[in-house]
């Protein structure tokens, strides 16, 4: 077999009298490249296997890039180095060991990430880093040993590429070990992708093009090549290093600057290629294909620049995901195709006539194939409807398959009877190919037969299909967060039609796939999707398909309970443990004991004293796009005043004037209604449209804890979705206390605001939970503080929309209760109170003294509401 460089050398200098590379090289390369072909085959298998595999997207990318492309780069960068430097081949044993170790490491990484345990993957990544460092060292030693030559500069690119994979491998190892969660994980992911694609693959391709491109164009190498190569490498490598550091560290503009420098380096390297282009138009399929690949490289780089400039560092990885087909197909695969188009005729050998015939065969219809592939690539990337995306895949795959068919035809045509081979080397390679062809065909046929049989055998599930009839339905909220799926187990009677509403409450991307085949798309943080399942017959496993997450514990199980759900039980009797089955159709229960997300901040319940002055100016902006953590691990969109639920607290004294500038920054009409003011509703409480503002002026003539809320119909929606807040007007001579807290209680309806199910549940008044200050059980996770013996005043407002509260502190009776403008109980009265009861929209306060250190729950003593989130804790410390 002859590498491209050998061909070029032959062409440039008529003949080198002694250029006899040792013969074994041919068969060595043939065998080494067989590994590449095998990985490519596996890539196709993974692509077709799709959803049946764990972590299919990850696997597809890594089988292709680590297996096929990685092996190819390892083999060919060493081969080119030897050929360009005209040095002796390094010891075969070393090359073989590196190749074996790289493949072993690849297998370890693939197995470790997709099936676990993660130390296998991390170990594989470590081994891979070791191999590429060794590879880089070998290249450096070869350069040292060689005489100064015209092509030595290319090796620098290969060494830098090896360094890039070493860095990328380290990052990959960290990712597989789940080091760094949430945003940090996403940042490392972005850095990992950038350094591997633009470093390991990009630098190698750029370096190779210096010699390959003029060869393909059949022109001389530009005089400026060496200089351009120096400058390009000098810019690209530090640029990439800075970019990767910036992405990993979360410094967006550092990353952007680094990428700009890298892009400048890339452009500098393309200067001699462009010059060659000016000298000679591309005229062959190979040259056009390579040119298209370079264009896609530039497009990918430009898109990458835009992404990095417009996203925060932890959002880059998600945004780059959609660019993946462009890079993999447009740039990497097309580079491979272009190179093969050029190299294969030489590899096949068989004399000048055969060379010509093979080249002509491979180039047959190249214009159409090129057009199809490059038309397909943008369709894969752009946000087009699904059928169009499928058309894109068809175009791309059709083009690739056409090439493969032509290549195989060329291979089989290389039959005995051709002209005698010109060089022993070619003949050796060709003969080996031809000889092994029947065996290869046999293996392929056998594997295909077996695969077909296995597919037939495993189709239609693993057990006898007993049709399960639907007996009921139930909706379950499923939350993906913190490397777990909540609830981890769902029990439902056989035949229940489960609907899973899956929400990603984490700061990184997840999805949910069930063993029965249903799956959500990859969900960005805060996004939701709904899965409707077939009637539950047997236990079904679910898991997150993002690489490594299943192994890390992101699994769930749907378990049918034995009893067939009977008709709704008679309402008279107590149904005992069958109760669960009967209420299965009710709303899903929140998992209030689950941890809050790490980045959740509780609404500050501490109430500040009224500011001085008799006039208070405040701006309140209505918004309806915020996503808040409304219960542990549950994020959903809420409608807010000034971005918080409840809205800002207004506090003043009797007679104070409030001048509120109300701005509608939302996407629909909103208004505002302050109960504390006396004014005709027509003007200030009118609904204003997005972008409009109004001034709402009122004087607080009466003391009390007042509600304010959105005044736009339907108010159930606007209030239930979060548009409420409190106005506190201190009664005259309000005594000073040690601490004041404010709890605004509201109802929680899970779901996207405005959806039919959400609206219906609000109208029926069936909340999924209750919240103090916007989070169900929030103060269980971030307890309120006090000290024993302190007098604590708890202000409360019931925002509803439909339920009030019976506020109670376990273990500490109230000695003062003030409700709706009047004291119901004064501090020096002999009696006490156990509950501050408020109907919807009422407000007041209660005072108590904590007798001793301890943990005192504060609850809505309508226990259903307490158990569904109207629950918090006072942590009382000793003095």
């Amino acid at each position, binding site marked *: 077999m002859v590498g491209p460089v050998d061909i070029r050398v032959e062409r440039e200098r008529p003949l080198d009298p002694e250029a006899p590379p040792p013969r074994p090289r041919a068969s060595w390369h043939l065998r080494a490249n067989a590994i590449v072909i095998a990985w490519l085959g596996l890539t196709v298998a993974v692509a077709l296997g799709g959803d049946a595999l764990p972590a299919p997207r990850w696997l597809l990318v890594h089988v292709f890039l680590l297996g096929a492309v990685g092996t190819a780069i390892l083999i060919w960068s060493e081969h080119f180095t030897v050929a360009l430097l005209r040095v002796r081949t390094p010891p075969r044993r070393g090359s073989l060991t590196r190749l074996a170790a790289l493949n072993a490491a690849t297998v370890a990484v693939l197995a470790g990430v997709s099936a676990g345990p993660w130390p296998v993957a991390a170990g594989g990544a470590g081994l891979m880093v070791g191999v590429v460092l060794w590879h880089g060292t070998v290249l450096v030693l070869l350069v040292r040993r060689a005489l100064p030559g015209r092509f030595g500069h290319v090796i620098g690119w290969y060494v830098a590429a090896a360094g890039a994979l070493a860095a990328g491998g380290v990052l990959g190892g960290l990712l597989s070990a789940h080091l760094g969660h949430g945003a940090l994980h996403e940042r490392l992911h972005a850095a990992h992708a950038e350094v591997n694609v633009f470093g390991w693959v990009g630098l190698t391709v750029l370096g190779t093009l210096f010699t390959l491109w003029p060869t393909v164009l059949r022109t001389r190498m530009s005089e400026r090549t060496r200089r351009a190569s120096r400058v390009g490498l000098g810019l690209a490598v530090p640029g990439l290093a800075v970019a990767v550091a910036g992405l990993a560290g979360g410094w967006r503009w550092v990353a952007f600057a680094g990428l700009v420098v890298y892009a400048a380096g890339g452009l500098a390297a393309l200067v001699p290629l462009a010059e060659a282009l000016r000298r000679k138009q591309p005229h062959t399929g190979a040259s056009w294909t390579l040119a298209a690949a370079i264009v896609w490289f530039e497009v990918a780089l430009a898109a990458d620049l835009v992404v990095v400039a417009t996203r925060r560092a932890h959002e880059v990885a998600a945004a780059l995901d959609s660019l993946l087909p462009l890079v993999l197909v447009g740039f990497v695969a097309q580079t491979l195709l272009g190179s093969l188009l050029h190299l294969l005729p030489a590899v096949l050998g068989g004399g000048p006539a055969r060379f010509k015939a093979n080249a002509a065969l491979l180039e047959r219809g190249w214009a159409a194939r090129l057009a199809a592939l490059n038309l397909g690539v943008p369709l894969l990337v752009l946000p087009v409807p699904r059928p169009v995306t499928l058309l894109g895949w068809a175009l791309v795959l059709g083009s690739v398959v056409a090439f493969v068919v032509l290549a195989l035809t060329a291979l089989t045509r290389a039959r005995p009877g051709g002209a005698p081979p010109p060089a022993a080397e070619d003949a050796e390679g060709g003969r080996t190919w031809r000889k092994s*062809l*029947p*065996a290869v*065909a*046999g*293996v*392929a*046929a*056998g*594997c295909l*037969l*077996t695969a077909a*049989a*296995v597919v*037939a*055998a*495993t*189709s*239609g*599930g*693993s*057990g*006898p*299909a007993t049709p399960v009839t639907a007996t009921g339905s139930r909706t379950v909220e499923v939350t993906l967060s913190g490397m777990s799926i909540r609830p981890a187990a769902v029990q439902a009677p056989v035949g229940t039609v489960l609907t899973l509403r899956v929400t990603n409450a984490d700061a990184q991307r997840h999805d949910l796939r069930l063993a029965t085949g249903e799956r959500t798309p990859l969900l960005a943080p805060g996004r939701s999707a709904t899965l409707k399942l077939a009637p539950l017959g047997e236990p079904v496993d679910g898991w997150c398909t993002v690489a490594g997450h299943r192994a890390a514990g992101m699994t769930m199980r749907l378990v049918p309970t034995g009893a067939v759900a009977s008709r709704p039980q008679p309402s008279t009797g107590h149904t005992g443990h069958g109760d669960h089955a009967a209420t299965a159709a009710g709303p899903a229960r929140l998992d209030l004991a689950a941890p809050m997300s790490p980045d959740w901040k509780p609404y500050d319940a501490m109430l500040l004293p009224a500011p001085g002055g008799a006039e208070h100016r405040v701006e309140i902006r209505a918004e309806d796009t915020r996503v808040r953590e409304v219960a542990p691990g549950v994020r959903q969109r809420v409608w807010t005043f000034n971005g918080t639920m409840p809205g800002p607290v207004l506090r003043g004294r009797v007679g104070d004037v409030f001048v509120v500038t109300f701005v509608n920054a939302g996407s629909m009409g909103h208004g505002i209604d302050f109960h504390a003011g006396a004014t005709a509703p027509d003007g200030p409480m009118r609904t204003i449209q997005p972008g409009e503002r109004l001034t709402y002026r009122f004087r607080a003539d009466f003391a009390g804890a007042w509600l304010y809320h959105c005044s736009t119909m339907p108010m159930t929606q606007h209030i239930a979705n979060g548009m409420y807040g409190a106005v506190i007007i201190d009664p005259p001579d309000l005594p000073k206390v040690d601490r004041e807290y404010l709890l605004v209680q509201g109802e929680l309806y899970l779901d996207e605001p405005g959806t039919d199910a959400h609206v219906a549940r609000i109208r029926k008044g069936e909340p999924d939970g209750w919240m103090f200050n916007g989070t169900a059980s929030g103060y269980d996770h971030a307890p309120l503080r006090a000290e024993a013996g302190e007098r604590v005043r708890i202000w409360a407002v019931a925002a509803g929309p439909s339920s009030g509260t019976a506020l109670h502190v376990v273990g500490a009776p109230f000695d003062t209760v003030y409700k709706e403008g009047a004291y119901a109980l004064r501090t020096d009265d002999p009696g006490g109170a156990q509950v501050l009861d408020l109907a919807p929209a009422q407000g007041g306060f209660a005072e108590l003294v904590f007798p001793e250190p301890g943990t005192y729950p504060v609850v809505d003593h309508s226990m259903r509401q307490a158990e569904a989130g109207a629950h918090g804790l006072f942590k009382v410390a000793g003095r």
Partner: protein
Amino acid sequence: MTWWSAVRFLHVLSAALWVGGQLTVSLVVLPLARRLLDEQRRAAVLTAVGRRFGILTAAAFLPVQLGTGVALAWRKGVTWSSLADPGYGRILAAKLLLFCAVMAAAGLHGWASGAARPGLARTMAVSALVGSLGVVLLATALPAT
């Protein structure tokens, strides 16, 4: 340990002999013959090996395999319609079809060797070998009872 164990033993043993025999011929006999024998002798030896293996297949392997296989299926209560059921039935059906394909490939190999079409003969031999490994794979996938 019942008589059925003996039947199952025969089924497994005969399969092992047939697959193992193919592997031995492909991995041991063929390479050595290529290296040690000249072209004429090699052809003679390989033809003889092929003929003997073919006779063994037709005279011993196939009758034993079919007989014990049918018996085991009968005991298991397999019916024609149950072959379509997902799970045991479908795996068994796939295995039988693959087995038929392997036998067809082996037969083609014999014919191609006789008809002096070495390329086709080799292709068929290798696909029969790989396919029979697939049969073993499916056999291990059958749920045990």
